[in-house]
Every structure is written in structure tokens, then in C-alpha cells.
């Protein structure tokens, strides 16, 4: 009986190891294509993240960022952001530099702060009293990026290219304000700047 159990467990273990290996291969897509550090841009005084190149033509970006704003910069708060962007244009500047001049995007930020809940409590307010989410913010963005190739002699770093980008974003709040006040507000009032570095593996 014990021998039988041993056999069965051995087979199960063997099968598990076998699937685990293929499973790990399937999970390879989880390894990010880039590491990101960003300053400002409405998602933290500083934020860090992992970036993926998506779509078959690799013209899409999918980024996950975590950002922090210290109290003396207007926080304290934490934010998690999921960004989606598309790079329709590509300009070759030299053998080692490329420009992506206009990359439209969309992102969602979720702010963790004690005064900000996902929604207004239904027991405190009649239906539709306040119509927005305090913590979850939809943003529209456009960015530009200069991509520099790393010299081969730096291969040991594990980085192929470095992207330097500026990103302008606005959100639902600012768009609502702008649409009703096009003479007192300008686009530069509602679009906020972020700058960042994308280290491409």
C-alpha cells in the first residue's frame, strides 16, 4: 500500500514539475520590457514602474506605475497607475537615436489617501449627488520620446536603449472645467507635465 502511495506521489510530482516548466515558459510574458522612473505627471512626485511593449508591431506601451507624493509636496499620498499609449510615428534621427514625436494615451490612476474613497458612500448621499470617484481618476495623455541606443561596450548593464520622455496629461475634472470655461482656461492650464526615463531591456 505504501509502495503504491509512493508511486502515485512520485508520478504527481513528476507531472507537476513538467507542467511547472511549461507554465514558467508561458509566464515569460510577465517579464517587463522596460523599467520606468517618472517625475510628476499627476501620478506621484516620483513614480517607478514596469513597462511592456504590446501589439505585434510593438507600437503600444502598457505601463504599471507606483507613485508617491510626500506631505511637503502636497501629499501625503500613494498612487497606482495603469497606462496605455500608442506610438504611431517614428522618426529616425541618427544611427543611435529615434524620436517618437506624438504618442496619444489613456491612463487610470488610483490614489490611496484617507480622504479619498473609491466612491461616495451611498448611505450618506442621495443617488447621483456627487457623480465622480474620489480615488479613481481617468486621464488622457500625449507624450514624446527620444530613444537612444546604448553603445555595445555597455552591454553588461542589460539595457539596450534609453527612452527620455515628456508626457502631458489631463483628467475628467480638468476637462469638465475647461469645456465650460474656454476663455478663462487654456489648454496649458489643464494639461500637466511629467518627465521620465524608460530603460529598455
Amino acid at each position, binding site marked *: 500500500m505504501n509502495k503504491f502511495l509512493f508511486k502515485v506521489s512520485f508520478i504527481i510530482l513528476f507531472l507537476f514539475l513538467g507542467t511547472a516548466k511549461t507554465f514558467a515558459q508561458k509566464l515569460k510574458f510577465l517579464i517587463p520590457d522596460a523599467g520606468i522612473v517618472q517625475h510628476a505627471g499627476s501620478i506621484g512626485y516620483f513614480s517607478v514602474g514596469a513597462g511592456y511593449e504590446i501589439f505585434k508591431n510593438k507600437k503600444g506601451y502598457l505601463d504599471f506605475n507606483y507613485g508617491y507624493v510626500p506631505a511637503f509636496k*502636497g*501629499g501625503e499620498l500613494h498612487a497606482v497607475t495603469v497606462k496605455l499609449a500608442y506610438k504611431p510615428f517614428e522618426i529616425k*534621427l541618427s544611427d543611435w537615436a529615434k524620436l517618437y514625436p506624438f504618442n496619444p494615451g489613456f491612463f487610470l490612476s488610483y490614489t490611496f489617501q484617507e*480622504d479619498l474613497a473609491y466612491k461616495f458612500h451611498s448611505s450618506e448621499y442621495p443617488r447621483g449627488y456627487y457623480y465622480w470617484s474620489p480615488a479613481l481618476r481617468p486621464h488622457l495623455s500625449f507624450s514624446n520620446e*527620444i530613444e537612444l541606443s546604448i553603445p555595445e561596450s555597455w552591454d553588461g548593464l542589460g539595457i539596450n536603449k534609453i527612452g527620455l520622455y515628456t508626457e502631458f496629461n489631463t483628467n475628467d475634472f*480638468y476637462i*469638465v472645467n475647461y469645456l*465650460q470655461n474656454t476663455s478663462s*482656461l487654456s489648454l496649458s492650464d489643464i494639461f500637466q507635465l511629467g*518627465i521620465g526615463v524608460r530603460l529598455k531591456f
Partner: protein
Amino acid sequence: MKASYLLLFFCISIFSCKNLEYSPSQILDKDSYKNINASNLERLGDGSQDDTVRFIVTGDTQRSYDETIKFYRKVNSIPEVDFVIVAGDVTEFGTLKEMQWLARELNNLTVPYVTVIGNHDLTMRGRDVFKRMYGELNYSFNYGGVKFICHDTNSREYQFSGNVPNIPWLRKQLQPEVGISNYVAISHVPPISDDFDEKLVKDYAAAFDETPGFLISFHGHTHNFEEFKLDNSNIPYVITSAMGKREFLLAEIINTKLSFEQISF
């Protein structure tokens, strides 16, 4: 070569831009205004030489910066106005940017202005933004022998806790005072609103009723002009139209008598 020029342009564009925002929910930035109410009241002075107190009541300025431009032009053209009071809901979403955008326009008024907290200003992190940029939620000031009592009546934002409006604080403000012959209250939510703490309406009205020289209580919130009285009371309660409806109230106190008119712009 072309690349390096572009790189240079790229760097310049970064460092010349002022729009580095850390979060729509940040409560300050290096350019945001501070203590507007206090500094404007200092500029206003006590009006001890002024026997005609002339002031403007507006409110619900949220999402109405375009109208605010027309507003300050109109107010600047009216002679001998002493100050302007904004009766709450300066923002829609309680954000720093909205408070900044409004202050940017109101700063074009030639006379001092003060703002009172509204329910929308208490959403998000608005309380902290308001306190830093404008000032306290309950405060009072004296001008020309009249005490103006600006206070928070946004009970719903405090889950009708029974502490807002703060009746003991109001009672204290309404105590007889040397040199003060009249009292005027300004707050956002009127006592006939569902957003005003039902339990406190009686005490609130009584505090005003029992104060000799109490003239009027001004409000906003409903966006429409309305004048009403509460049961067994002779105190007039007056709601000003919203900024977006292009109407405000011009009030005048001469010789302890108050009059006001609606002015469209």
C-alpha cells in the same frame, strides 16, 4: 547634429514648463495662493470711518471662471463697494487647481474678497486645500460696526453629526460687542435644505432671533435667488443666484438698516 538640437530643445521644454503636477489630489504646490481671506481682510481694515457698508454676495462659482471675469468687471464698475463675499462652492471637485483658477480671476477685483466653505469644497481633499489657500471654515470679521459671521453649514459632509453648523461657536460670535451694532451671517447651505442638519435648525434660528441687531442670513447652494423666513421668526434668509447664472446681490447697511438688490451682469 539634428539629433542633438532636438535633444537640446527637449531639455529646454522640460525645464521651462511650470505644469509639473504631482497629483490632482495634491493640496499645495509652489505657486498656490495662501491665506487669501486673512490678507484680504487686513487690506479691508475695520471700516471705522465708513458709515455706509456696501458689499456684494455671490456664490456657487464652481465651473464658472468665464462668468467670474464678467463678474469682476461688473463689480469693479460699481462705485463704493467695500468688499465681496463668495458664499461657498468655489469648486466642483474640491481640487487645488479649481481653487487656484478661481482665485486667479477673483484677484482682479479691485476690492477685497473673502470666501466661505461650500459642500463641494469639502469633497476630495478640499478641506485642506481651502484651509491653506483661503483660511478657516468658521470665522468672523468686523467692518463699519457690523460683524460678519462666515461659517460652515454643510452638515451632510459631516454625516449630520450635530456639530455643523457649530451652534456654540455661533452663539459666542453673536455676543454683544463694543462698537458692534449689527450682525450678518453668511454660509453656504440654507436651513431649509435637506443638506442642513434638521436637528439643528431650531437652535440655529434661535441663535439669530435672540441677537439684537441681527440683520440677515445670506446663503448659496440652490443656485437660485430666494428669500424666506423660518416659522416664528422675523429674520430674513436670502439665497443668492449662482455665479453661472450671472446674478449677484448688492447689499447696503446704512444706519443699522439693511437693503439689497439683485444685479444681473
